[in-house]
């Protein structure tokens, strides 16, 4: 046998390994790079910072991954976060629990609305949620009278700064939600339906799957997760800042999902990949700041890393 026949399967195996585990590898590489070249990187406090900062993006990206799994996209997540933030001061008097419930309701309602537009009216996801992206933040500002509000409720603020057994609450929430999302996708009928809808919608319809319910449900989940991220970020900030909270979050979340190996064409959801996608982008971000790169270079480097990560994880055609 010629050498070509020997190396070919090997190369195929390497590329398929990279495709599946590329994002984990990238995280490891970046960690090693930082350990070697970044001062004061190896400290518990630093890892804690990275995890806490990655948590909101991660939470939003989980919802985004589900939506993308159905061949959709949710551009409204940032605005939903801002609506959630705007609602916080209005209900904080009744306690943090009420705030969370109210924000969740708002997130779910907004998700139901997107889902309705997509599933019932057949409007394309990107445009349905674009309308919410534009209008939602305006609505949040109307609710908040355009004002940033300083928060003082200790219990609420603890959501952003507190620990449970040494693990920051935000990280804990993100971890639990990730596990739940993983279970949802792999182990529930809803999850399997979701991928089928994304894989071939007419086929899913004709297989008698509750396509509309799945779509609406997915957007509702995405809305709810965005609302949770909004509440947590608000708690961390110590203020309700509907004008700025969650700006461009949709792009960060989509990047995390895609870098994590879920194709934008739907039909496949990689939950752990998404989590690592969020971590990867967080590490990139941190690395750039810690090396004090100017904004111009930072943006170009980020662009290059996104392309490289997606290039490695892309679906290849067999030829």
């Amino acid at each position, binding site marked *: 046998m010629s050498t070509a026949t020997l190396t070919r399967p090997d190369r195929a195996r390497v590329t398929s390994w990279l495709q599946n585990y590329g994002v984990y590898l990238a995280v490891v590489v970046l960690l090693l790079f930082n350990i070697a070249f970044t001062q004061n990187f190896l400290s518990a406090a630093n890892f804690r910072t990275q995890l806490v900062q990655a948590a909101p993006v991660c939470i939003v990206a989980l919802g985004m991954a589900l939506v993308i799994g159905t061949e959709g996209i949710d551009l409204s997540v940032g605005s939903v976060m801002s609506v959630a933030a705007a609602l916080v*001061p209005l209900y904080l008097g009744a306690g943090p629990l009420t705030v969370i419930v109210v924000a969740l309701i708002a997130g779910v309602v907004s998700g139901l609305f997107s889902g309705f537009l997509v599933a019932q009216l057949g409007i394309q996801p990107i445009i349905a949620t674009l309308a919410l992206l534009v209008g939602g933040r305006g609505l949040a500002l109307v609710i908040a009278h355009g004002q940033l509000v300083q928060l*003082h*409720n200790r219990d609420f603020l603890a959501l952003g700064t507190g620990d449970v057994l040494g693990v920051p609450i935000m990280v804990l929430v993100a971890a639990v939600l990730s596990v739940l999302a993983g279970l949802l996708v792999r182990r529930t009928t809803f999850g399997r339906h979701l991928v089928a809808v994304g894989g071939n919608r007419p086929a899913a319809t004709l297989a008698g799957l509750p396509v509309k319910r799945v779509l609406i449900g997915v957007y509702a989940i995405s809305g709810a997760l965005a609302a949770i991220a909004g509440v947590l970020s608000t708690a961390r900030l110590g203020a309700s800042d509907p004008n700025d909270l969650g700006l461009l979050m949709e792009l960060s979340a989509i990047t995390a999902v895609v870098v994590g190996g879920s194709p934008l064409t739907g039909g496949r959801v990689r939950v752990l990949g998404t989590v690592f996608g969020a971590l990867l982008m967080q590490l990139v971000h941190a690395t750039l700041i810690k090396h004090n790169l100017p904004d111009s270079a930072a943006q170009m480097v980020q662009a290059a890393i996104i392309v490289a990560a997606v290039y490695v994880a892309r679906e290849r055609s067999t030829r």
Partner: protein
Amino acid sequence: TSREETPAAQSNGSGPAASAASAAPSADGCTIDKTGYPKLDPKTAIVGFSQSEKEANPFRIAETQSIRGEAAKLGIPADHLLTTNAQSDLNKQISDIKSLLDRGAQLLIVAPLNSDGLQPALDAAKAKKVPVVTIDRQVTSKPCTDYLTFIGSNFIEQGHRAAAALAKSTGGNGKVAILLGSSGNNVTTDRTKGFKDELAKTPGLTVVAEQTGEFDRSKGQSVMEQLIQSHPDLTAVYAENDEMGIGAVNALKTAGKNPGKDVKVVSVDGTRNAVQLIVDGSYNAVIESNPRFGQLAFQTLQQFEDGKPIPPSIVITDDSYDESNAAQKVGNAY
């Protein structure tokens, strides 16, 4: 029960209006005769105000409020004050100004989104012989011909003063991090330049990091959290607006540091929240950037119509807050 939350700004603009720092109208200023514009009475004329960004931060809220408040005080009927908001979109601001002119505005007050790029709008005003007063941000066009005058702060000077304040509170030694404003914004450019120029005079202070926080509290906080990790020996922070400064304070507190003591914090703006932090002891100084241009703007227009010469720019005096005066003056903050 205790108060759970506090609004960021008193929108009643209770602080002092901006006042001019420059000398009295000089003879070589711009006069109505030089421009050949028609004479009007600002109190009965139609006045147009073009705001650049959403009224969603204390500065913009106070600024718009001050214009409206002054108009009301002068007895200008509500339908004679036309307002638009460019929503941070330069092209929109141009069309906004053109549509103000189209709707009959005879005097214009413009808060430019950017120093460059408003030329077409200014040209349109010129063609209609409408005087334009720009506030808070200077445009790079020609005063008197393209626009009447600029009223606002000197951002470079604000940077100087911030550096001086920082030198004072740190005792002239330490490592400084700068939280920059949005890239490409000339406010960022000027406040950075002024700060660095002045800081160079204090050799004990070195800038170890400068990263953008995009004038945003949460971004300022995130960046600061990173910097605390990679520069544990940081002793001072200069934030180019209060919001990022407050974010930095949050980050320092979460990291178990003592802002105002271990790490000195200085910023520019003069918002209520930041000044309150000085009072509370976790902030060191705030250089004011006064947004209350209403009185001065209308006054200037009045003087112009009265035939008095108007200088090409009217730089206002900005206050500053530090440990010594914050408690008394916190009521002035917006």
